[in-house]
């Protein structure tokens, strides 16, 4: 580091004040190294974006040809014809039933962790650990669990079993999202309510929840979008269904979009594969739009809360 700066000498060994001030020697080496690292990091970020483009384009290019209005409003005809309406409806049913269970539980868990448990509460520590582990469970294992818990005793696969499995996928996401948003609610709101002598539960219901509602809603959207694309639990718990039926009975087999893709991929019928690409495109676009929308909304509600 103690390199002596070299004087730039002009003709005749005299100092030339007009020579350009470029680094030389050790400093030059260090700056070149920094430049190289910069280029590598930029290339890595570019690589990630390019991967996203390749994946999205790969699905778009193959799925766009089957995408018509009839594709999403018609039921399938035969192995490859018609649309995917009943699969979309099935996914909505299964995910909605799971969300009805997971979202309230997740919000209540978030409330418990932020509003009711003290910072050193041992129970809260155990719950947080359980949520972390639940999020770390491979989704195929969640499917196995529900297979043992519901499918075996009922002797039948069902959309309901898949809903419970998806609820287990959503619960830790929802609890963590609620917890993070609730922590952003400024403490002086709680203190003001305490100073007015308001009960804790009334403070939570009338002051804290309303001000965190935007963030909780975006957390819910992200959790639902995640569950809609999950295949492993549906494959284990809800893989036997009538592929052409439009059903509202979730206590029996319900067709879902991920299962349509999973079962069509290796069929030796080009039309069936094309339909699977169309379904993949619909699923991906819905999930990406939900994610982008939730992000924009979250940024807005964060900005509002910051004011």
């Amino acid at each position: 580091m103690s390199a002596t700066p070299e004087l730039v000498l002009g003709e005749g060994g005299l100092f030339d004040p007009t020579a350009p001030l470029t680094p030389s020697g050790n400093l030059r080496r260090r700056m070149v190294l920094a430049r190289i690292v910069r280029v590598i990091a930029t290339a890595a970020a570019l690589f990630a974006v390019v991967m996203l483009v390749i994946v999205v384009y790969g699905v778009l290019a193959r799925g766009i040809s089957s995408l018509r209005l009839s594709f999403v409003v018609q039921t399938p005809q035969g192995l490859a014809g018609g649309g995917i309406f009943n699969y979309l409806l099935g996914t909505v049913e299964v995910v909605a039933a799971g969300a009805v269970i997971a979202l309230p539980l997740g919000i209540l868990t978030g409330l418990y962790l932020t509003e009711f448990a003290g910072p050193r509460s041992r129970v809260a520590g155990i719950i947080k650990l359980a949520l972390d582990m639940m999020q770390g469970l491979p989704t195929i294992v969640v499917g196995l669990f529900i297979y043992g818990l519901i499918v075996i005793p009922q002797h039948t696969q069902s959309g309901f079993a898949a809903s419970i499995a998806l609820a287990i996928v959503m619960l830790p996401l929802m609890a963590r999202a609620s917890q993070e948003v609730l922590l952003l609610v400024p403490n002086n709101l709680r203190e003001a309510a305490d100073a007015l002598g308001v009960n804790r539960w009334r403070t939570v219901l009338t002051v804290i929840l309303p001000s965190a509602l935007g963030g909780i809603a975006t957390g819910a959207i992200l959790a639902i979008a995640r569950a809609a694309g999950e295949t492993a639990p549906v494959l284990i718990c809800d893989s036997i269904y009538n592929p052409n039926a439009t059903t509202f009975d979730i206590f029996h087999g319900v067709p879902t979009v991920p299962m349509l893709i999973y079962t069509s991929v290796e069929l030796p019928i080009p039309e069936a594969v094309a339909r699977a690409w169309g379904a993949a495109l619909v699923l991906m676009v819905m999930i990406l739009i939900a994610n982008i929308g939730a992000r924009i909304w979250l940024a807005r509600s964060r900005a509002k809360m910051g004011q």
Partner: protein
Amino acid sequence: MLFALCALAGLVAVLTLVDVVLQLVNNATPAISRFGLGFLWHTTWKPGFNIEGAGALIYGTAVSSLLALVLATPLGIAIGLYLSMMAPPRVRATVGPLVEMLAAVPSIIYGFWGLVVLVPFVLKLEPGLHDALGFIPLFGPPSTIGISVLSAGIVLTVMILPIISALSRDLFLTVPGELKDGAAALGATQWEIIRGIVLPSTASGVGAAVVLGLGRALGEAIAVSFVIGDVNAIHASVVQPGSTLAERIANQFQGALNNLHLAAMFYCGLILVVIGMVTSIAARSIASRFDVNRTLGGGVL
């Protein structure tokens, strides 16, 4: 009243987790009593002959995940550095969410895409890899199908890249500006700031991020099942097909031949639960050490 409701909701998570373990042990009992711990290293998987061993599955799980980790860790850290320290604000606000979008794409789509787009590409890549790196047994003679542990590793790389890069970006952003400015004022270049200040002070947090990515890769079933081939074999070369624990369950569960076959897959699930819990706890303990350091540093500054 509301307190009780919230506390009950919290306990649901704990009870579910306990029940997961009980349920898997219960359903795996036929396989556990028949194969015992030997299940972990025996490599024969012949459900028709009532012989099942997860040795090859565990090997394939480890190799494909490690491959993904080796590729995704440097890439993810580099992306984190770019987003937190180098990108202009506007680029950061676009590229950051785009990278995170990689995590939103469902695994079934990665699988489908991997099979149709990536596998042919890997097939073209393999001869070159063998010529250049063939002296390492990992890159053996090219296969003819492209469905391989290598393809699975690449798909897993893309899937865990957003986890590692988003978490490490957030960590790098927590490094106090005073430290970075101080180093810059002493004449450190950006790379010297990264190597001397940013990476050392966030190392344990980055470690936790990597472990979280590893946990995700070890348990991925659907995407891997499309590109790895579900072949019960141990090859030194990654261009050969293989199998993983999670992928085996996805591939064979609906076609289970008998109760023992089903129980063996529950046994695989049990192994996955143990792996998942260990990685969660490991990530947590690494991260909590990081939190302690952070508050200490933050307190001083």
